[in-house]
């Protein structure tokens, strides 16, 4: 039962984040790329304001997988690196903490592009 509740929280959090994005696609002129950027920035802002940790604790993967989670990871990395190295950390911290995610995205994107060809949506 507890695992079920956990999965439910994950599903709801991820679902709400994606639902907001779909609303943006349907009702605004924002391109998908702009929406993704807004999400990353939103994650950074919510992390800076100290709000995202609560969302992350509640939603777990549902908060870390959508791109707001990436922004959160960036922000956390910067804050940690600044604590350790001072101003230099503002530059090095973000990429360090998200390096795994970025490398995975490049690698798997490349793999998929090797295996699949885009269809023509017919």
């Amino acid at each position: 039962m507890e695992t079920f509740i956990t999965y439910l929280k994950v599903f709801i959090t991820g679902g709400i984040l994606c639902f907001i994005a779909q609303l943006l696609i349907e009702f605004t002129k924002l391109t998908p790329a702009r929406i993704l950027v807004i999400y990353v920035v939103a994650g950074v802002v919510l992390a800076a304001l100290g709000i995202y940790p609560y969302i992350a604790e509640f939603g777990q993967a549902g908060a870390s997988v959508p791109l707001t989670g990436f922004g959160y990871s960036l922000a956390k990395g910067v804050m940690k690196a600044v604590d350790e190295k001072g101003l230099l950390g503002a530059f090095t911290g973000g990429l360090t903490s998200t390096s795994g995610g970025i490398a995975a995205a490049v690698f798997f994107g490349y793999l998929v592009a090797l295996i699949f060809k885009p269809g023509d949506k017919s």
Partner: protein
Amino acid sequence: MAVKRIGSSTIKFANPPSIAAWATIVGKKEGEGPLAGCFDYISEDNTFGQKTWEKAESHIQLMAVQKALEKAQLSPNQIDYILAGDLLNQCIGSTYALRDLGMPLLGLYGACSTMAESIAIASMIVDGGFASRCATVTSSHYCSAERQFRFPLDYGGQRPQSAQWTVTGSGALIIEELGDGPYITHATVGVIQDLGVTDSNNMGAAMAPAAAHTLRAFLEDTAMPPEKLGLVLTGDLGKVGSENLLQLLSMDGIDIEPYYNDCGLMIFDDKQDVHAGGSGCACSALVLAGKILPEIKGGKLDSVIFMATGALMSPTSVQQGESIPGIAHLVRISRQKGDE
């Protein structure tokens, strides 16, 4: 002395050229649409066996020209000029399609108005005594248009509800000096109209003013009452653009609604989930050549005012914040040579 002009903008051909043959080649979605039975060839595979979408578009265009020649029982060297255009950068859809045919080429750009533009100019060339036979062809392809105007398909983006679906296909005509019709009796070349529309998801609104302007000019120049127009057919104004056009015309007291239709609304079914309707150079070419010309030849329709509309922007101009200029070219095609 411009003896064949009437009024301010319209040409009335002294010897209306005749359309000898037409051909239509389409892709999968068009072949599943309401006009499927009208087309010469439907491909289940939108690559048409080619390695890139651009090559596929060129292949479709070549097929259309060859089919039209076959139907007219002509060989390429019997065509004096071919007038061709498409949506791709530098019109490579057309240039690569036609490079081995050996026909004198007049390349055109009119965006989605290319079919009407090419018919107008070809008719001027034939009626002016500069050629006995011309061919006109245009094409578009959903996948190459996406790469051209929006993102390559590999990007995997989602289409908004207001987007139009670029038609995959090509339409070709053979126009000659002597024949049994259908005849091209008039042509009105359009003037760019730009009312400041910047929304590239609402091209219909950008092009409707141009269509209204050209039709108004034709009606003033010919003094033709709306009831004598036959079918008034626009290229791809779509749902919103069509409504805009009817509104603009009614503000001038012109009511064409009983005789009006739009190719973008005819080529696809609502069930095909194309959102706001069909678009692309081939949209108007396919409906004209697939449905309308056979109906005129067969006696079911007397005449058509064919007005293909084009949006004359580029991805760069849109990104730079520019508005979308529209244009509409008009040709009148009739069963008879005269005004009867």
